[in-house]
């Protein structure tokens, strides 16, 4: 084959290489376990559906989520408004769809910060050992000594109510669990022969961390993060409900429940719809997380040698 064709086919070959890896993963032991797992299928389906709604939904809704129409306020479900209207005449279904985007974006952002922060601190503690290790783990103990939501509440309150501050508050609160798990797994892997020999070879520390320690802590982190996404959705909705998160007129699920509580008897759909949406989302993440835990066999993550020896 001439250089010319090789150069041109490079992007395609990269895509097909990725596809090939995905296909091979699908047929591997773990991949098969994942495909056969009912919880992963159902949970993954729910999460994909929600993701789709969050990305595409806001373009398809016929109403403006903030547009008030006082002449049609507190209307029950009808053809024009399938989930009714709220106290300012806004379409509940539209607001629900827009809320999906906020809830998911917030959950993903807060969980991502937790993962990066926790993994970095955990790896740093495991690799450094000694005083650095002790100090970082004490810091984790201190974070875990606060009941999570109480701490998040106070941080969000001190910084001032906004979605951004909710992300900050929920990230500060959640990193320690990751740090502990990553550290424990990294310490276990560190003593295994292949890492020992890599060290004897004179492999730089950074390379050992990147090539040997990091890949071996991915599974528990993925499982924890998936379950965490559900928790974060709940916590963020709770903070917004209390008035410390998204501010009206933003269409956020927790805020919507807070706005509907005064019309509990007259318009019960106002709290029902966002409540079901939150529960549905969290169920999706929990199913997916539980399924991943089973499929990835995370309980035995630090003796993953069974494939190699």
């Amino acid at each position, binding site marked *: 084959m001439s250089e010319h064709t090789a150069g041109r086919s490079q992007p395609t070959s990269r895509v097909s290489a990725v596809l090939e890896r995905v296909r091979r993963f699908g047929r591997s032991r773990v991949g098969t376990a994942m495909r056969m797992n009912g919880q992963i299928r159902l949970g993954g389906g729910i999460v994909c559906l929600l993701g789709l709604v969050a990305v595409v939904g806001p373009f398809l809704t016929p109403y403006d989520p903030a547009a008030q129409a006082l002449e049609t306020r507190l209307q029950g479900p009808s053809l024009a408004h399938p989930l009714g209207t709220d106290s300012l005449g806004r379409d509940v279904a539209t607001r629900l769809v827009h809320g999906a985007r906020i809830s998911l974006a917030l959950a993903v952002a807060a969980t991502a910060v937790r993962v990066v922060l926790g993994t970095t601190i955990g790896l740093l503690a495991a690799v450094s050992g000694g005083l650095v290790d002790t100090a970082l783990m004490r810091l984790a103990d*201190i974070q875990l000594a*606060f*009941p*999570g939501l109480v701490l998040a509440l*106070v*941080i969000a309150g001190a910084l001032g109510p906004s979605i951004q501050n909710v992300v900050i508050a929920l990230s500060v609160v959640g990193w320690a669990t990751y740090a502990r798990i990553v550290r424990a797994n990294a310490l276990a892997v560190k003593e295994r022969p292949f890492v020992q020999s890599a060290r004897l070879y004179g492999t730089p520390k950074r390379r050992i961390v990147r090539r040997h320690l990091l890949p071996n802590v991915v599974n528990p982190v993925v499982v924890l993060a998936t379950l965490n996404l559900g928790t974060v959705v709940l916590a963020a909705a709770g903070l917004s409900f209390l008035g410390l998160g998204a501010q009206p007129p933003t269409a956020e699920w927790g805020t919507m429940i807070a706005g509907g509580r005064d019309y509990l008897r007259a318009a019960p759909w106002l*709290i029902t719809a966002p409540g079901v949406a939150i529960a549905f989302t*969290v169920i999706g993440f929990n199913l997916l997380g539980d399924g991943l835990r089973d499929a990835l066999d995370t309980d035995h993550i630090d003796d993953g040698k069974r494939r190699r020896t």
Partner: protein
Amino acid sequence: MSVVLVGVSLITYAFVFLTPGDPAYTILREQQQGPPSDAQVEAFRAEQGLDEPFVVQYASWLGDAVQGDLGISYYRSEPVTSLLLEYLPNTLELALAAVAVSLLLAIPTGVASAVHRDTWIDRTSQIVALTGISMPNFWLGYLLILVCSLWLGLTPVSGAGTLGHLVLPAITLGTGMAAVVTRLVRTSMLEVLDAEYVDTARSKGVRERLVVYKHALRNALIPVVTIVGLQFGFILNGAVIVEVVFQRPGLGTLLVDSIFIRDYPIVQGVVLVTAVAFVVTNQLVDLAYVALDPRIEPGGRGVSANE
């Protein structure tokens, strides 16, 4: 543990300084509904010790806190400690009732789930547990208010004091925890039912009911005790929201109200008390674990938790 407690107190105290802007100015502006004069700000700073360096402020606050003096509320001009003591019983009452509700729901369900493993009983209870974990508790609270108070008229909508006031909040708070405990009872029972002494009991001709509830359950409950203790933090988290939903005067409502009006001494007091209570409970759980299961060496478990 002492390092943790000092860290907890330091972070609790430092919250004030997270707020953008000058705390003295912010507080005075909210207190008198208008911008304060420079002299007022100066006077307030001197009065509250806010002009001292951070370390000095923290040291004097901690010194007082250890002696049970958490300062005076900016707005209510009452000592924080007496406010806490006034609100604490309502929260404790709610927490205990919620634990009771969760155990009453979770133990029979978890046992039934394990005994009838992989039957419809097991599957139903697992689905219910999953839903219980995934529901926002403030939403559940409003649904209960809607059905039990507004439609059926069985219970009062909000407030505290009587048993009727306690039922709905306890159910709301207990359900989420019940879901977690059910799963744990199930796992723990499954493990114990496989043990040889259970087979021995069966082969001796002990009735199945007795095998399950006496021989198996007693041992299966050991890890459950731990989790119930560790769920204390979960209860404190949940209590904040549940108290707001039912407008119960408790530490949660006190905390949320104080956060909004920036009544820092109260915020610091509530956070410090809940965090210390949380840390102490976790230590007690460790001790209870040792007492319940003589096979465990004191401190043996602590290694994995604190290493």
